[in-house]
């Protein structure tokens, strides 16, 4: 499978995301923010970082990047799209996912090994996991606190669209939500970083690999 990883100015985890894609057995394709071109990718990943310096508001400028026209169209057409951290923020700003990510309740950047509970294994990016499975990956952000209005939160819960929840609540996210999916299950936003947990040597283990290997099941 070809997985396109978008590099925006200020993207930081793009190389890591491409490595994770490769380790899961897929082909990684580097996509450029300024191109109206997904280069034939079967899935798209928006990586972490500080796109456009996170100026104005996290993800608010990246949403208007040329490549996002194609990403939004493809997502609406059912292509698997994963936004990690800043990528999640961009997906919310693009209205592909509801809610928003705001400043952590402790007001600091935090980098932790964080355990999550997988709550949905029918999305394009989580099928490799069992529901209820606990995975430990990396959480690192300053604006990672998920918020939405009560009605939206109730809807996400009722429709089973919370894909992962924090064990403990490290940043004040409403209902400890770490990641959500859209109605169709092809678009996933995840605040923590599975791409930093794909090798035994570097990072807190290999629990993150499943997010990338899940793709095979969907696309096969």
């Amino acid at each position, binding site marked *: 499978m070809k997985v396109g990883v978008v590099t925006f*100015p*200020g993207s*930081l*985890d793009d*190389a*890591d995301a491409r*490595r*994770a894609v490769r380790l899961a057995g897929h082909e990684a394709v580097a996509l450029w923010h*300024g191109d109206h071109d997904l280069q034939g990718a079967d899935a798209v990943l928006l990586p972490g*970082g*500080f796109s*456009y*310096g*996170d*100026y104005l508001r996290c993800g608010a400028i990246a949403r208007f990047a040329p490549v996002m026209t194609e990403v939004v169209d493809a997502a609406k057409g059912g292509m698997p799209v994963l936004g990690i951290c800043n990528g999640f923020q961009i997906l919310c700003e693009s209205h592909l996912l509801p809610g928003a990510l705001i400043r952590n309740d*402790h*007001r*600091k*950047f*935090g*980098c*932790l090994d964080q355990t999550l509970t997988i709550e949905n294994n029918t999305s394009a990016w989580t099928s490799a996991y069992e529901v209820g499975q606990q995975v430990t990956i*990396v959480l*690192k952000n*300053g604006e990672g606190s998920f918020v939405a209005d009560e009605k939206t939160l109730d809807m996400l819960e009722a429709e089973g669209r919370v894909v992962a929840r924090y064990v403990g609540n490290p940043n004040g996210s409403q209902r400890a939500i770490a990641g959500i999916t859209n109605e169709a299950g092809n678009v996933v936003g995840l605040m923590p*970083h599975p*791409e*930093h947990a*794909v*090798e035994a*040597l*570097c*990072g807190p283990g290999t629990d993150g690999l499943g997010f990338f290997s899940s793709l095979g099941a969907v696309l096969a």
Partner: protein
Amino acid sequence: MSDASPATDLRIDTVAVAAQDPDREQPWADLGLKPDEYAEIREILGRRPTSSELAMYSVMWSEHCSYKSTKVHLKQFSDIPQVTPIGRMLAGIGENAGVLDVGQGYAVTFKVESHNHPSFVEPYQGAATGVGGIVRDILAMGARPVAVMDSLRFGPLDGSDASRDTQRVLPGIVAGVGGYGNCLGLPNIGGEVVFDETYLGNPLVNALCIGVLRHEDLHLAKASGVGNQVILYGARTGGDGIGGVSVLASETFDADGPAKRPSVQVGDPFMEKLLIECTLEIFAAGLVAGIQDLGGAGLSCATSELASAGDGGMHVELDRVPLRDSTLAPEEILMSESQERMMAVVEPADVAAFMAICAKWDVEAVVVGEVTDGDRLIIGWHGETVVDVPPRSVAHDGPTYERPYARPSWQDALQLDAAEALPRPSTGAELRATLLRLVASPNLCDKSWITDQYDRYVQGNTVLAQPSDSGMIRIDDETNLVVAVSTDCNGRFAKLDPYAGAQLALAESYRNVATGGARPLAISDCLNFGSPEDPDVMWQFAEACRGLKDACLELGIPVTGGNVSLYNQTGETAILPTPVVAVLGVIEDVTQRTPTGFQHAGDLVFLLGETREELSGSEWASVVHGHLGGRPPLVDLAAEMSLAEMLVAGVGLLTSAHDLSDGGLAQTLAESALRHDIGAAVTLSEDVFVDLFTESAARVVVTVSAADGEALQSLAAEHGVPAAVLGVTGGDALEVAGSFSLPITEIRAAWSATLPAAMGT
């Protein structure tokens, strides 16, 4: 100063005006120059300098840029053979950063630099731009920056009135280091945090960056090739940081002086990230003949150093420099320390391709001049010449001072006041309470309140990071080559004996690198001291340099470069002499490394090295008695080398290793147990107190599987390293036979509460 206002008078000061008006009074003293320095500038030029030339000389001849008080001592580092235990140096002292061969066609560069004074004035921006500056230094060598570390020192955190200043400065500095480094996508893999009352009003921010390159990608800072174009690219030049090096880095703070804040630069890490990616793409395309970052002294430094190191002259049109503030005068543009700027020398045929890459990354780039066949650095301003100087006189041939130095009159009395005479705990309950008090003390407590604010995972190559003994980074996915770096310094030891103290800093850093299984290859240093005008301080500096040189010769590793920060004092009180030493090592096969902290229950715990009763300068003496006196622990470099060789040879056999330093065996056992909540039961000698709290060097605690005890003993014997079995890992407590038992939960509660409580979160 003349009667005319500087705003009108200085602005039009060209070389022609200087010739016509030779006796104009100039503000050389306000710019930090001494009378004889000003006279020397007049002699070099054969006339008075223009205001722009005066600006350039003043910043370049500042202590920070010229090393004028220290180069007579630093030059001895060049006497150390420029080879590492496994290869050669590709670039040495005098370049932006030293570059060493690490095998398989790869080279590594690393450097530590201070940003002490700016970080007191404006903690966030001071620390942030310290990170930015060292990253550009590494980038200018042609290397991809792959990791940062930071070595921080603050005033007391003991609840006293003075602590309030630490509580102001620390969060800003930590947020600045994190805010900038996190945005660059560089993992922060370690460093130090130390508290001592002498750093009150003068915190130390030493930032380190590691870069990786292929041998053939090495770039040096020189302008050669007549007709080559000089391109300034990156951020626009503004009024921030004007005179930073002369005003801030080279003066002590004076309560009556003017506010210094405008001299601190303001950083934009997003711009720096673009600059890094843009520069790496330019390197990959082979478009650069020479390159220099703009750091301290800004354009004055970049133009004069590039021209001085090249084989010709340089002509620059200063009015082409993109400005943030159009009202800046030429001398202000030359002195500005605006961040995120680089200067490249590019062959004319490559300029278009260079500009295209800059445009791709939205980085502004302008041709500001060219390399000439003369031997002068000439700078024009709207068609008139404002600078016409021999570049070497600005950049490399600045003044040299043989500052007087002498062993302080108080040194003997200090060394006689030994901590070994202080009252000690003896009962099990007292020893238990002492251990708990020490693990909770500011220097020994959990630092995760700080380190959790740094991204240690980005790039996905972090093998070890805080709280391990060293930071370890895989240099890329294509190879199993890993570099390990540690920074260390115990300023109390350096105060008691600066020669031995500097060697102990080196020894600890060397040991930390070896503890993870890496072979130590080279050092870089950041020498933080008080005023060079004080003979006591100058003696400390001279002794520290001599100690480092002698130690490097004995260990067979070179000094690759370094940085000096002087005038670190408030009033008459200098900081503890703080020669921070960074040691870099390599592991050729990354699958083999030794982790920090107990990994499994049932492993045998060994203490390697010789234990002596050495309590002077220890954490125990400081925390329990507020005492500093006596002689520091014995330096035994031969023992350090044997120990390091054994640790490197023991990779695969050792299940964990953790060095002994501040706080002694007690702290090492506590940290080893805390890492994975695995306790240990140990049996010590009759003098449990000395065993636990002495700070003898050249010691490491290691564990091996129960079946490997004899293998460990024979490995130790082979290397001539004393090895004593202390006990066995396991359980949920640290038990010292016949003395006390301490549940890990109780240790953790004491250890982890200190910083959050002090910071109010």
